[in-house]
C-alpha cells in the first residue's frame, strides 16, 4: 500500500511527529511505500537543522533526515508555513535577504500542491496532529 503522511505539529512540543516517524518506519518494514511526508503548520519545524536536543533524548530532526537518506522518503516542508516560521533553504534565504538558512538535510521546501498530489497518488493519507 502507498501511504502519505501529513505532520501538523513541530518536534518535542507534540508527540505527533514521533508517531508519524514510527508509523513510517513500521510501514516501510512491512513492505509498504511512503509516498511523501508533508509538514504543515508548526510541523515545518521538524526540518530545522539547528535543533539541538539533549544527548540523552531522541533527535527528531535527524531521525527524519536519516529516514530520507536510508529509504529515500520524500520529506516536503510547506513553503508558506515555513516562511512564516523561519525555516528557509539556501535559495529562500537569498530570495528573502536573510543572513542564514536552516533547512535540515533530506527535506525540501515546496507548495501545497505537493499535499494535494500525495492525496491523489497514495492509497491512504494519514494526518498526525494535536
Amino acid at each position: 500500500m502507498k501511504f502519505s503522511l501529513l505532520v501538523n505539529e513541530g518536534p518535542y512540543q507534540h508527540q505527533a511527529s514521533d508517531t508519524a516517524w514510527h508509523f513510517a518506519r513500521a510501514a516501510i518494514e512491512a513492505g509498504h511505500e511512503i509516498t511523501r511526508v508533508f509538514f504543515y503548520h508548526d510541523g515545518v519545524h521538524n526540518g530545522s537543522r539547528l535543533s539541538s536536543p539533549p544527548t540523552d533524548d531522541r533527535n527528531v530532526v535527524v531521525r527524519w533526515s536519516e529516514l530520507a537518506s536510508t529509504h529515500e522518503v520524500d520529506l516536503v516542508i510547506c513553503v508558506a508555513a515555513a516562511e512564516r516560521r523561519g525555516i528557509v533553504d539556501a535559495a529562500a534565504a537569498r530570495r528573502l535577504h536573510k543572513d542564514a538558512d536552516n533547512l535540515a538535510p533530506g527535506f525540501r521546501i515546496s507548495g501545497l500542491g505537493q499535499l494535494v498530489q500525495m492525496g491523489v497518488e497514495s492509497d491512504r493519507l494519514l494526518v498526525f496532529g494535536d
Partner: protein
Amino acid sequence: MSKGDQTGPQIRRFMCVNRRAPYGTSYALEGLEATLAAGAFNQDVSVVFMDDGVFALQRGQDTSSTGLKDFSRTWGALESCGVEKLYVERESLEQRGLSAQDLIMTVRIIDAQALGMLMEQQHVLLNF
C-alpha cells in the same frame, strides 16, 4: 482530453475538516489555504465546519484590536476555486447557541450521522 484518455489528471474526493476556532491558533487560516490549493488543483473538495470550527463562519467578526487579519470573507472565495460543497454540523451549531442566521454565508447544515456517512465517501480526509 479525449473520452478514452486514461492518462488525464485524477480527481479524488477531498474533505477538509475545520474543527478549531478561527483565531487563537493558525489551524483555521492555514486550513483554508490548503483547501484553496485542493480546489485550485481541481479536486472534488468538500469543506466541513464542526466543533469550534463553526465559529469561522460566524457573522460580526472584528479583529481590529488584535492586529490579526479577519479572514472570514475568504471562505467566500472557495466558490471561485470550484469548491461549493460546504457543510456545517448541526450539533456543533446548537451546542454553541448558533443558528443559520448567525453565519456569514449559506451552507448546508447536516447532522453528525449524515456527516459521518459523507466522510466515509471521501478518498482523503484532511484535518487541521
